[in-house]
């Protein structure tokens, strides 16, 4: 028999060779656990992310915008669903994952703990938050775990309209009245820093990066991705005629990148710990949906059980008939 070390070496060789790992394949326990953690956190982020944006569905300013936003928030439910399914292939149930979210054992992206205060926030989220997410997600379409990579392919395909929708909202505001443009600037000011934090702690504070790279959960470090995001976004803000809320943003010819100011990591860790402006409300909303839905989920199961019982009975009769026992 193979010993664990041999298996682990062969496992890593398969990943290095670009092979995908499928759920029933042998995998190191740590690989399984890391994936359950990461995929479920990703799923939770989609689901919790529905709340700040959902906050504006009933107040969207036009029918066209309302439909666009509804469809987008619905997509997020779908994406959460795809991701939960991918995690379920590793032997954890969706209910367990939900409980981990509700009890605070599992985390989700901190950005969703900030409130959406104006319609422009919907634009800023689409542009910046989805923009940041896409950078991460495109990378993940090539990750080593098959179900995760496949979920990401589907998600990236669907998500391409989200960022465009957000940017278009911003563009409309910036081409509108001064009041609208001010609304857009304010949304950028409030969303920018939390969006930068989405890439996670600095590389030196991110001890798992090396392992994640080996498993292709990551192909670039947090800081590399953050830089990539800044480089893409600054010209987009210029196009809108908006001012970046960071006086230190400046093109660095030598590096070939934009320099930018220091992130407030204290705030980041405070929000991660649960002390952000909306952490409690987000979890309370998910808890309420869970509690209010319990009797509905139970009823559907009870009905299904009754129905299949009845079917069995009627099938029984059919079988007996064919044997001529009931004339």
């Amino acid at each position, binding site marked *: 028999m193979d010993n664990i070390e041999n298996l682990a070496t062969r496992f890593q060789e398969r990943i290095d060779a670009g092979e995908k790992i*499928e759920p*029933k*394949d*042998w995998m190191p326990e740590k690989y399984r656990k890391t994936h359950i953690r990461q995929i479920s956190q990703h799923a939770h982020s989609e689901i919790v992310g529905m709340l700040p944006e959902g906050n504006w569905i009933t107040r969207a300013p036009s029918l066209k915008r309302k439909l666009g936003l509804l469809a987008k928030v*619905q*997509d997020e439910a*779908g994406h959460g*669903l*795809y991701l939960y*399914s991918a995690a*379920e292939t590793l032997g954890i*149930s*969706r*209910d367990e994952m939900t*409980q981990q979210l509700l009890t605070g054992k599992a985390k989700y992206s901190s950005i969703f703990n900030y409130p959406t205060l104006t319609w422009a926030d919907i634009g800023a989220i689409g542009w910046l938050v989805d923009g940041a997410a896409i950078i991460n997600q495109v990378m993940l379409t090539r990750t080593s775990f098959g179900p995760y990579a*496949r*979920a990401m392919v*589907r998600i990236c395909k*669907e998500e391409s309209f989200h960022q465009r929708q957000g940017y278009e909202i911003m563009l409309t505001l910036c081409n509108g009245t001064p009041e609208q443009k001010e609304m857009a600037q304010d949304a950028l000011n409030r969303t920018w820093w939390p969006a930068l934090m989405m890439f996670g702690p600095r590389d030196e504070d991110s001890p798992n990066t090396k392992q994640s790279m080996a498993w292709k959960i990551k192909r670039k470090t947090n800081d590399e991705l953050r830089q990539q995001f800044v480089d893409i976004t600054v010209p987009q803000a210029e196009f809108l005629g908006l001012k970046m809320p960071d006086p230190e943003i400046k093109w660095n010819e030598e590096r070939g990148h934009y320099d930018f100011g220091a992130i407030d990591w204290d705030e980041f860790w405070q929000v991660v710990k649960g002390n952000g402006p909306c952490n409690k409300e987000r979890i309370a909303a998910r808890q309420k949906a869970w509690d209010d839905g*319990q009797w509905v*989920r*139970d009823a*559907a*199961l009870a*009905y*299904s059980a009754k*129905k*299949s019982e009845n079917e069995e009975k009627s099938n029984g009769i059919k079988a007996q008939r064919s044997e001529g026992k009931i004339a």
Partner: protein
Amino acid sequence: MSNKKEWPLFEIFIRSKNGLEHRHAGSLHAADPTMALENARDVYTRRQEGVSIWVVESKDIHASNPEQAGELFEPAKDKVYRHPTFYELPIELKHI
């Protein structure tokens, strides 16, 4: 905490258009097959991805064991005579 039962998991197969086979699209939860079909329609065909849906309860799928992949699939590797390129014919020959 909940110790209640969860809606079972279903695997979803979608035919994207007539003439093509059903392909695995993903999975979802539903209380029964009827609901699974409806959920699949809402979850996996929102962008006109399909014209036909199959749903199968995940627990009803029998899968080969990856640990037996060697004995199952590798013996086919050296059966090159099953492929047309194995047979050498003069190049000027057409339509064969």
